[in-house]
């Protein structure tokens, strides 16, 4: 897949993207509606209003008058995706090769790479409002639920400097990966540095867009 940057131009760091994907028990997500939906008159009783801190289904014999920023849709979410690296200044994928060298009697050096153990650290990894991953991992870490993050993630490494919107962007998918919180705390802001361990259980393909709703297509 060809690169989309001009000759001699460096690829911006933001074009190398690591995305974490994980599943959780079904969670209800309520989304505030700002404009009147087309089915308001007929499906009004599938929408919700917020009363106090709770969401209640719209009731009554007919659709109430539409009011913006009042009604919610409910969606059941089981899979989350989140880009890693918001508020992180520097992070690299370390391949950690296991290298073995030997030398013959003529002085020639032979190098064998037995395996790699790719890993990427994010430090700091701040607890940010709206971050489902931070919420998930901090709970798992403090409750010592190792199975919540050990082998629980699918990771996508997207090379946004290869490809384009029409043909997709190059992506390498690793399944059964681990994201390990290593500490929780800090000074002015709460940080939870994480180690991302890739599995090398790889599928190469493309993603069709650069947002959390992307569709991954394995290479043919």
């Amino acid at each position, binding site marked *: 897949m060809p690169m989309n940057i001009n000759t001699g131009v460096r690829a911006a760091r933001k*074009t190398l993207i690591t995305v974490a994907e994980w599943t959780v028990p079904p969670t209800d997500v309520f989304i505030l509606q700002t404009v009147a939906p087309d089915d308001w008159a007929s499906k009004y009783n599938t929408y919700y209003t917020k009363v106090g801190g709770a969401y209640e289904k719209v009731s009554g014999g007919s659709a109430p008058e539409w009011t913006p920023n009042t009604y919610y849709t409910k969606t059941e979410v089981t899979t989350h995706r989140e880009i890693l690296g918001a508020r992180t200044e*520097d992070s690299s994928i370390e391949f950690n090769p296991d290298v073995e060298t030997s030398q013959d009697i003529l002085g020639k050096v032979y190098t064998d790479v037995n395996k790699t153990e790719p890993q990427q650290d994010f430090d700091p990894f701040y607890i940010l409002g709206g971050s489902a991953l931070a919420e998930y991992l901090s709970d798992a870490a403090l409750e010592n639920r190792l199975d919540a993050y050990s082998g629980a993630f699918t990771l996508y490494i997207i090379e946004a400097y290869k490809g384009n919107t029409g043909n997709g962007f190059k992506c390498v998918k690793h399944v059964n990966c681990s994201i390990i919180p290593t500490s929780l705390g800090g000074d002015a802001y709460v940080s939870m540095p994480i180690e991302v361990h890739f599995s090398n259980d790889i599928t190469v393909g493309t993603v069709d867009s650069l947002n959390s709703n992307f569709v991954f297509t394995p290479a043919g």
Partner: protein
Amino acid sequence: MIDKTTAIIEFLRECPTIKANPVFFNFGEVEDGTYQANIQSDEVLLNLHFIDGSVLKRYTLFLDSFKSVSYIPVVNGKSDENLEGFSEVQEVIDWINDKSNKQEFPDFGDDFVIEDMKTLTDRPALVGVNTQQNPPMAVYRISIQIDYVDLTKRIWC
């Protein structure tokens, strides 16, 4: 895109102490009770790039408050005009920091996330007295610093 200076001035105008008084931007009449917001173009001083393309930036604004000066001494604990003027400016500082603690910030729009807003001093700074005016006019300065994250350069949305 929302102009950040306009957003800050609109925000400051919600302050009860400022609300009733004229607020000028960069230039204006120097009279008792007026406020003048002056910008400092230092956004490049804090230009911290993150790997997702977002950038932490800083916006600094000086709010000068003009108060007429009295030469009557403070007697028997009674406050005089100077003390009242100082206290009024202190109220503005306290209001800004209270808003910050509540995470109530100026509206910079969806592409900007304000991380922190603070005054650079806990007390009003007396930066000068203009004795050429009648009555003489004291200038108290409040330096307001806002750190915000610019999300416009991200490619992941």
